[in-house]
């Protein structure tokens, strides 16, 4: 079966867009092929800086013929209906239709329409220009006098179609004056001439001879292997960097790996600064010595095999890197001349957020909050105070101004350099952590206190001014902040009452911030939720409650990723006053363990059965069966046994919960199981005696109430 070769040759495509563009090209073309009834065998797409290429193998030479039955009016229908049917089915007379028997509704006409399939190459000639015109580039442009848009000017198109063994045909189409053909070009500098191509196989080979490696994965392999070898040959080791590898492989069609060096003196700068300078500005790799420290070498990936073996290229890159490192060294040394605390007054004039005030105000809030949190995490109050005061000061340094991604890290270096306590210096960096789900969680109490305060201040502040994340929009990374708090608290086993923490954080903000309380509807809602509070307090109270729900959602996401059931989190959060994450997770764990036992499963079934009966009867009677059952009304032993078991379970479970021993609480609950089973086995709830029936319903309610000591079982699925 024939194959398609499709290449779009343009000016340099941004590296970051190439991989996605290859995927999009494949999807757009193959989806349309399938829609057109052309089921193919395989497809693969590639990108280089100057071309997108697609091969689709095994496309049928023709579309299948389509047969369609079109149902018409009944036999003997009015002439208008018959004529309409003939027209829509494309028939000349009713004699061309067949009659289908239907004893119930009467016989009716059916037209058999046959649509012959078209040659695949004709279909491709329609699909391919549409793919070009509708291509979803993140940013595209016009050029010259044309109207076509592409990521950068598009120069030529290759589109061939045919079986492997034959000379393929050109898929004849044209887009904005560019005719599809069989000609492409090689490397911009090394082989700029035209190349005739036929099929994918000779295309790849011809490109390779013209110094173009089509497959980005192969370019990456070449770069990585050559870089490692080059480093190894000199007794060094490449510092691998996947994101950089992805990027540089999109900047070259013919990777040539070279090594350069810089003055050893630059190694006195913190290694992260050296690496960031070389990586961010020059897109070069760094290498390390056997001991792990950076070597005064770098690895660059050139796009050409130069006639002097690359000497001029290496020399040029060395000069640029020398200038960049000189700047970095200058920044670093200049920064060291000013103490971190001496930078703080500038924060008075720097706005953190227009509604939330200046950076100075924010730093003061974080300081006060961190001090309040210090005893809770076992941190030294003075160190916490110091760390909170200095932790943002590096934002004003030259080094961070140049490389914002080094914020925190530079603070640590500068704090250590001015003789701060090790915990204080560490907190300058670690209070930003954890930055993501894979980032390490700090364990030093000083870092923990400042990290919690930093994130609580952010969350509470943006919640007060009603700037919450919506859908995919989370410009202030509030989800990440919440997850950060969750991980800090859980990994370190910190007993942090969230509602109180939100309250403490909210107290640090001035009353009536702009945007506070949101809309009138929101305010009314707040008041209806919290009678007896003044509007301002009420709003803040509501912020806390809402944040708790936000945390419940984040915790669910977090636990689900660890394999826990989200309904168990709901079952625990549904209990009153649950705002201690450590306890919540322990309850969830204990609950999960319990529910994996037979006792757990059966008790859950029993509780659900009790709840169902109650719900139905309460609805029927329009009454609520709460309150203690009357023991005088018990008629059967099973009732008494259950009542006793509930009393024991309730008291044992409550005592265990008070000791925070949730597995014992679950064991206490488990003892209910045989009595619940026996009750349902032997006792009929809906009896004629009204009082006995009511009493039994109250007993069922007691089961539900007792089990709430550990979780709201009604929230558990299954």
């Amino acid at each position, binding site marked *: 079966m024939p194959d398609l070769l499709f290449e779009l040759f343009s000016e340099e495509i941004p590296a970051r867009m190439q991989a996605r563009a290859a995927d999009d090209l494949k999807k757009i073309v193959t989806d349309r092929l399938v829609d057109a009834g052309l089921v193919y065998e395989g497809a693969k797409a590639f990108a280089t800086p100057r071309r997108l290429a697609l091969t689709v193998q095994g496309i049928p030479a023709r579309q299948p013929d389509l047969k369609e039955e079109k149902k018409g009016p009944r036999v003997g229908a009015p002439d208008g209906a018959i004529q309409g049917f003939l027209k829509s089915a494309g028939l000349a007379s009713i004699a061309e239709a067949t009659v289908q028997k239907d004893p119930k509704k009467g016989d009716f006409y059916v037209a058999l329409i046959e649509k012959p399939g078209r040659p695949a190459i004709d279909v491709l000639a329609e699909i391919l220009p549409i793919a070009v015109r509708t291509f979803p580039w993140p940013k*595209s442009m016009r050029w010259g006098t044309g109207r076509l848009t592409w990521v950068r000017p598009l120069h030529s198109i290759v589109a061939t179609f045919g079986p492997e063994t034959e000379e393929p045909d050109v898929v004849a189409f044209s887009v904005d004056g560019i005719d599809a053909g069989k000609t492409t070009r090689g490397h911009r500098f090394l082989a700029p001439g035209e190349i005739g191509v036929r099929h994918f196989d000779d295309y790849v080979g011809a490109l390779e001879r013209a110094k173009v490696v089509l497959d980005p994965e192969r370019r990456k392999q070449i770069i990585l292997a050559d870089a490692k070898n080059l480093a190894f040959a000199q007794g060094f080791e490449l510092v691998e960097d996947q994101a950089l590898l992805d990027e540089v492989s999109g900047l070259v069609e013919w990777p040539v790996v070279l090594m350069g060096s810089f003055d050893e003196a630059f190694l006195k700068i913190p290694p992260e600064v050296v690496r960031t300078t070389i990586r961010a500005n020059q897109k070069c790799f760094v290498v390390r010595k056997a001991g792990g420290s950076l070597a005064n070498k770098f690895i660059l990936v050139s796009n050409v095999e130069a006639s002097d073996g690359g000497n001029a290229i290496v*020399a040029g890159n060395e000069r640029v890197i020398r200038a960049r490192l000189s700047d970095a060294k200058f920044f670093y040394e200049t920064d060291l001349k000013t103490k971190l605390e001496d930078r703080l007054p500038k924060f008075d004039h720097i706005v953190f957020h227009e509604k939330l005030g200046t950076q100075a105000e924010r730093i003061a809030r974080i300081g006060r909050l961190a001090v309040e949190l210090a005893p809770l995490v076992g941190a030294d109050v003075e160190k916490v105070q110091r760390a909170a005061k200095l932790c943002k000061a590096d934002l004003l340094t030259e080094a961070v101004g140049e490389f914002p991604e080094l914020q925190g890290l530079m603070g640590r270096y500068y704090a250590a350099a001015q003789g701060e306590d090790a915990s204080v210096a560490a907190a300058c960096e670690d209070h930003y952590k954890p930055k993501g789900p894979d980032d390490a969680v700090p364990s030093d109490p000083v870092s923990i206190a400042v990290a919690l305060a930093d994130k609580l201040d952010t969350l509470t502040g943006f919640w007060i001014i009603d700037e919450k994340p919506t859908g995919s929009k989370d410009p202030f990374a509030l989800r990440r902040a919440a997850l950060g708090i969750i991980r800090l608290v859980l990994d370190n086993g910190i007993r942090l009452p969230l509602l109180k923490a939100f309250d403490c954080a909210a107290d640090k903000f001035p009353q009536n911030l702009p945007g506070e309380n949101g809309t009138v509807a929101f305010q009314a809602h707040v008041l209806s939720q919290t009678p007896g509070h003044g509007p301002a307090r009420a709003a803040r109270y509501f912020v806390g409650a809402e944040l708790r729900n936000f945390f419940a959602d984040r915790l669910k996401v977090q636990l689900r990723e660890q394999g826990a059931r989200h309904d168990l989190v709901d079952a625990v959060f549904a209990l009153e006053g649950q705002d201690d994450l450590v306890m919540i997770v322990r309850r969830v764990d204990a609950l999960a363990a319990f529910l994996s036992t037979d006792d757990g499963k059966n008790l859950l079934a029993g509780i659900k059965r009790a709840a169902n009966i109650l719900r139905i009867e309460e609805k029927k009677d329009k009454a609520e069966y709460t309150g203690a059952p009357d023991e005088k009304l018990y008629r059967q032993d099973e009732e008494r046994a259950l009542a006793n078991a509930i009393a024991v379970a309730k008291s044992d479970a409550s005592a265990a919960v008070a000791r925070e021993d949730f597995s014992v609480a679950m064991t206490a609950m488990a003892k209910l199981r045989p009595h619940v089973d026996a009750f349902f086995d032997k006792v009929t709830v809906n009896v004629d005696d009204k009082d006995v029936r009511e009493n039994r319903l109250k007993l069922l309610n007691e089961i539900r109430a007792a089990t709430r000591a550990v979780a709201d079982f009604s929230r558990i699925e299954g």
Partner: protein
Amino acid sequence: MSSDLPAHMRPERSFQGFILALQRYWADYGCVVLQPYDMEMGAGTFHPATTLRALGPKPWNAAYVQPSRRPKDGRYGENPNRLQHYYQFQVILKPNPPNLQELYLESLAAIGVDSSLHDIRFVEDDWESPTLGAWGLGWECWCDGMEVSQFTYFQQVAGFECAPVAGELTYGLERLAMYVQGVDNVYDLNFNGRDGDRKVTYGDVFLQAEQEYSRHNFEYADTAMLFEQFKMAEGACKKYLDAGWQNGGDANDKRHLMALPAYDQCIKASHVFNLLDARGVISVTERQSYILRVRELAKACGAAWLATAGGGRA
């Protein structure tokens, strides 16, 4: 080509020879070679030969050197790479020819950058000028890891779509010349290509100016006067724009008679803003509103230009 030249005119020896080589290359291509615009501006793009000529349907090919003033980039002559006054070489071709990249590479060859020895790369860099209401897509051009030019296909200028599209090349002259001459400090550039006593360096010409202007830009520029100048330029720009409209019947018939003088005031306002910014007297929130005010002027000038003969009004 450079081997035919006397030594002191060769681009790898002489800063002025380097500039002349670029001018000659683009003159040979058919560009109008202009002289610098006689106003202070932050970049060659502000020159009316780019900003205004990029608008409208008429073909336009021009090349020129433009001194660029970046008050904030002054370093009192102490930094080997940063200057508050430097030269840009600007090429604008409308519509962009299909082989603009090749033309650019040939121009590098003309100033002594051999693509068989050097690694020249087009690295994504999209250009946007909030003050001009302009944006385009293109690259920064790298030579052995150093950014030596900006290459932009204008999509919009002064808020108007560019059709046809103009291609803009901006060469950082000092940086490129440093590369070609092999010096690490801009002040060491050989300006006139001579040796010994007759040699004049970039430092001889500009070091004192860098020191004095840095002092001026950061410490002494008269901010009260500058605030007033901003207002005056803004006011004058609007006044000339209002006065320049000549009443025709419908909108398509209206003509403007003073787009260029009005645009001068927009350039003026933009530079005054840069000075105020360097003096640190504009707060973060105010900054945005100043940029917006200049953009409004630029947009109105663009609209006026499109109603002139140069802008394509028949």
